[in-house]
């Protein structure tokens, strides 16, 4: 246990150092521009799997949390000219409150009802933002990036580094949940909520906690998108494509371990970037949908399920 902790944090430090060195050495901005999106999806997928993977509550409202993150940032920039760090921190706070709200509202719902309720929430919030003039309404709003902070020489590279930092935070949070009583409690309530409650697992508290943490991380991951695009409008900030992408990435990677969503997000994120450049963004969504259905039908445990089966087969061969 202790050794794996050291390995994890060494890995995280090496990852961040490597990202930092890359931003210093590569002059071209495009790789960072594309890489940002992939890192963003890693954050969203890992955060989604806290609720969707461990607890078995399928949140279709990823776009609600993402959009709330974006618009919290927009509001802070417009009203106070707040710096990026504040935008992300406040977005996380708002996201966790929203998550708590979702948890309380959907207390008695399970399965498809929970999923539909989260879509409903996304549309209601989107409609409210659309009718809110101060943040641009339906037409959207243009944002001006402030000058970049010294160690970085361009804003996109800085955002890339910030998103990498968020990846580490999201993965570390999810990993510590997975290895703790919280994670085991969530898994118990996924398998049988009634039985878990009867054996003394505080199911409601755990569910609310999972909603709040997952929501905070998704909103935090969405907040820098305002500055990344220098523009925000309701229909793209609350696009349902975020929900389906994140669902697909998590399930394709496999949700029983935090590595799953990371693998899924990287794999699909890279594929998407390549397809968007070479073919079109529609084909992109098509590939995503087909892969989602294929994996759900043929490989229920995702990529990590496949890998584990491989390794257990090999172990059998050897013995």
């Amino acid at each position, binding site marked *: 246990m202790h050794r794996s902790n050291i390995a994890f944090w060494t890995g995280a430090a090496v990852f961040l150092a490597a990202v930092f060195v890359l931003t210093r050495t590569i002059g071209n901005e495009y790789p960072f521009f594309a890489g940002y999106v992939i890192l963003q999806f890693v954050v969203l997928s890992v955060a989604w799997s806290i609720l969707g993977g461990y607890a*078995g509550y399928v949140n279709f409202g990823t776009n609600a949390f993402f959009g709330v993150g974006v618009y919290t940032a927009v509001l802070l920039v417009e009203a106070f000219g707040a710096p990026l760090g504040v935008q992300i921190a406040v977005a996380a706070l708002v996201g966790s409150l929203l998550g708590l709200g979702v948890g309380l509202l959907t207390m008695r719902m399970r399965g498809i009802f929970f999923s539909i309720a989260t879509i409903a929430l996304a549309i209601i919030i989107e409609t409210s933002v659309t009718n809110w003039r101060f943040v641009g309404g339906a037409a959207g709003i243009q944002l001006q990036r402030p000058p970049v902070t010294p160690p970085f020489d361009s804003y996109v590279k800085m955002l890339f580094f910030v998103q990498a930092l968020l990846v580490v935070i999201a993965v570390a949070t999810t990993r510590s949940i997975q290895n703790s009583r919280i994670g085991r409690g969530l898994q118990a309530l996924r398998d049988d909520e009634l039985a878990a409650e009867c054996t003394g697992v505080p199911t409601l508290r755990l569910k609310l906690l999972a909603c709040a943490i997952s929501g905070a991380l998704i909103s935090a991951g969405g907040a820098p998108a305002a500055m990344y695009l220098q523009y925000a409008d309701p229909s793209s900030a609350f696009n349902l494509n975020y929900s389906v992408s994140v669902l697909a990435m998590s*399930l394709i990677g496999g949700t029983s371990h935090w590595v799953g969503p990371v693998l899924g997000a990287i794999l699909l994120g890279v594929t998407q970037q390549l397809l968007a450049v070479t073919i079109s963004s529609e084909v992109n969504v098509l590939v995503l949908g087909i892969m989602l259905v294929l994996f759900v039908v043929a490989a229920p445990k995702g990529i990590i399920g496949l890998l584990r089966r491989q390794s257990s087969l090999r172990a059998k061969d050897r013995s």
Partner: protein
Amino acid sequence: MFSWDLLLGAVVLGVLLGCFYAAVSVGLSIAFGLLDVPQVAHPAFLVLASYGVYLLNDRFEIDPLLAGLLIAPLFFLLGLVTYRLYYETFERRGSDAGVRGIAFFFGIAFIVEVLIILQFGVDQRSVSASYIGKAWRIWNMRIPIRQLVAFAVALLLTVSLAAYLSKTFMGRAIRAVAQDEEGLRLMGANPVWIKQFAFGIATAVVAVAGALLIIIAPVEPTLDRVYIGRTFCVVVMAGLGSITGTLMAAIILGVAESIVLTMFGASWAPAISFALLLGVLAVRPQGLLGR
């Protein structure tokens, strides 16, 4: 500026709209309400049917309602195949059907949506027929005839489906399988086959509803996203599986949307169904006429 005339007009149009919503939701009422299949792709099939009707109307100038009937058998087959796939992969294995079953239909919905975009583009499409574009004037209200046609056909569709489920042998078998699958098995019937047939009927109904959808207004590929809210709102508010409840709930939704549209403007309309849905789920999850 409040006026009774305006409110009355809104209510009348709302009732017309509500019956149309009943028609688009009644298939889901069977698939989700009776059979417990998380058919999130229902609205996507609906829009697909609209494009099928558009194709027949555009190429061969077939009346949209007739076109809807013509593609209904194809949708029946689509329903059979979809349910068989769902059953073989999830219901039969039984494990973890919840998360993956929902993801499965969500994925199908997106595939259908993108295929429509690739084939027809993102522009709005509409059909032409003699009754589209004209309106009746009653007192000082203007009622488009297309709304009246959709209303009449929707009412006919919903009532005949309710009759089918309560009067015919097969209809009763469908309701029986929803109540007690094991009991049906003990009677020597095959519950899976009945469920598959029922899912086929539910999907065939979607074909006709899709014709109504494109008669009432032009369609675009991503229209299904709004209808996720409308159809699930109606079905959940109705109490799962109740056809009469579906009609009542749909009229409530139609009137609510129509009033909000008149009083506050179109930009708030999409949120109405979802807000109603959330309210019903939070307060009375068993619906108006719950089982």
